[in-house]
């Protein structure tokens, strides 16, 4: 039988479980989020009780470098189907080799972790630029986006420094998550939890029109290179970008 260990929440509960597995010297066949996958014929689910999540987190933080923690956090945010077991194996290698794992890319889980982490950060970086806010009647700025990886936390932390003096909402339409900022803190709500946000657009025509005008004007006709544009700005992002959505 394949032993699949189940966690029931975000990064904290996942990491707490992984630490618990190491503590008890258990080797899992897989680790999965509750209700997130189809149970196979030879699979058996195991719910391991974690007494003190925070204590496990602290334990890990003391054992691994910031770079390693950053890497596994990014992998956890990815859309990779095997991310949990990749992280488990990465940590196993880390406990064996320490910081030098980052130079041991002949180990598959290490190489994969580095690549996935880069991919997640790359998408987050692109969206830091491509996100478009509209001004709402209730004085909130609202932006919706769709991404492969779960990057709303990275984006919210970026904008809570940058636009700290404004109210804003960032909406991950694919995952149904809202990050809402009220000039003090960010709170996260899901589609079900949001009752009424009253997202009615302010009369934005002038500013949006100016931006589209600027966009059209700034390209040099003699140098037109739409292929190059698309390489840097993949079409999947266009539907939420007002300056190019008409070209879709």
């Amino acid at each position, binding site marked *: 039988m394949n032993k699949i260990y189940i966690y029931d929440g975000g990064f904290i509960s996942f990491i707490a479980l992984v630490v618990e597995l190491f503590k008890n010297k258990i080797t899992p066949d897989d680790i999965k989020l509750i209700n997130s996958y189809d149970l196979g014929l030879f699979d058996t689910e195991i719910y391991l009780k974690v007494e003190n999540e925070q204590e496990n987190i602290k334990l890990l933080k003391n054992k691994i470098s910031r770079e390693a923690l950053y890497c596994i956090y990014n992998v956890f945010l990815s859309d990779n189907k095997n991310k949990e077991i990749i992280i488990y194996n990465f940590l196993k290698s880390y406990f064996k080799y320490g910081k030098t794992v980052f130079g041991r*890319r002949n180990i598959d889980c290490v190489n994969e972790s580095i690549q996935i982490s880069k991919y997640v950060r790359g998408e987050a970086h692109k969206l830091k630029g491509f996100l478009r806010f509209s001004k709402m009647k209730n004085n909130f700025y609202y932006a919706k986006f769709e991404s492969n990886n779960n990057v709303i936390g990275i984006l919210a932390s970026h904008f809570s420094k940058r636009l700290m*003096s404004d109210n804003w909402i960032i909406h991950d339409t694919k995952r149904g998550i809202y990050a809402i900022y009220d000039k003090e803190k960010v709170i996260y709500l899901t589609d079900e939890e949001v009752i009424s946000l009253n997202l009615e657009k302010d009369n934005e025509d002038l500013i949006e029109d*100016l931006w589209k005008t600027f966009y059209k004007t700034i390209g040099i006709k003699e140098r037109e290179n739409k292929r190059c544009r698309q390489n840097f700005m993949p079409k999947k992002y266009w539907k939420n970008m007002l300056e190019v959505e008409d070209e879709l």
Partner: protein
Amino acid sequence: MTIKEKLIILSDSAKYDASCSSSGSTRSNTNGTGNAAYSGICHSFASDGRCISLLKILMTNSCIFDCKYCINRKSNDVKRAIFTPVEICEITMNFYKRNYIEGLFLSSGIIKSPNYTMEKLIETLYLLRKKYHFNGYIHVKAIPGASEVLLKKLGTLADRVSANIELPTSNGLKLLAPNKNEDKVTNIMKTIKVNRSRSFTPAGQSTQMIVGATGETDLDILGKSENLYNNYSLKRVFYSAYIPVNKDKLLPAIKNPPLVRENRLYQADWLLRFYNYKVDDLLSHDNPNFNILIDPKADWALRHLEEYPKEINTASYYDLLKIPGIGPRNAKKIVSNRKYYKLEFNDLKKMNISLKRAKYFITCNGKYFTDTNIFNKKIIEANLVLEDKVVSNKGVQLSLFNE
């Protein structure tokens, strides 16, 4: 005139400035709007494939100068417009809060006098920083000939200040930009270099040269760049393929801007800044222009084939950088991995190191990627040219603008 009409005129006349980078500053947000991202952020890409990160505009396109190549020259009959400082601040803030831009790129034609124009630019930046509490990125063009006192003031408000050298030789400048002179530009560079600090142009300075408007060779242009990097600690030199916007008997009549030449200059510029090459390594008086068919690094490698193939597991970091297709990032990956195990071709592929060009110039554990008969100047050259053609037909190569 409406704001929209002004924006069309004043962004249209600013678009020929190549610089749009927003990197190198760590300005933080203190109870206002905006901060700088050290890596820079591209917010969009224009139809020409260039990154848009800044609201790139002129304060005015009126000008008392008559530079031959410039669309805004005095003798041109074009529509003129001027933004007030408040208008510039309002557009910048409104664009920034909607995350259209990373900041402002402000340049200007010269009205009344260099000092007067500079004062107007300072007034605008002061308003934006102090009244609108804007802490995002600002790149501003210094006006040649304005006083040093004003330049010092400007530098405390901006992340980057720059002045365009325009042409690599003073003869070229005399011919096409009779009102400008090189000393005025290098004086600006000197002042910025001496005063640079965390609170004075933290992102440093850049400049731009026009390529193909006068008879200068690549050696003239790149020699000038090397000189500027060494003497004024410039962050970037931008190259701008000449686009004929004016008809003038002093200007060459060309149909298409020399984009491939521009691309070669950028590639060589990278070699100067990140790969330890010198201009003398790349070009000489007998050979003053780059090969249009092949990139400067591969060209150098083919002329020094006796130094290759390099063994991936033992070559020094700087030797790894001399392998076509291997840059600083890949060289670092190789160095940090080979400490722990011997690298084979497959290991390189696994790390996402492209072997398309590199494979001809390396061995892994003493092995060449194929029959060593291939290791021959003519054969490698033919293969590289072929690959370059495929790439440029796809149109992905001419795009080095994002930092």
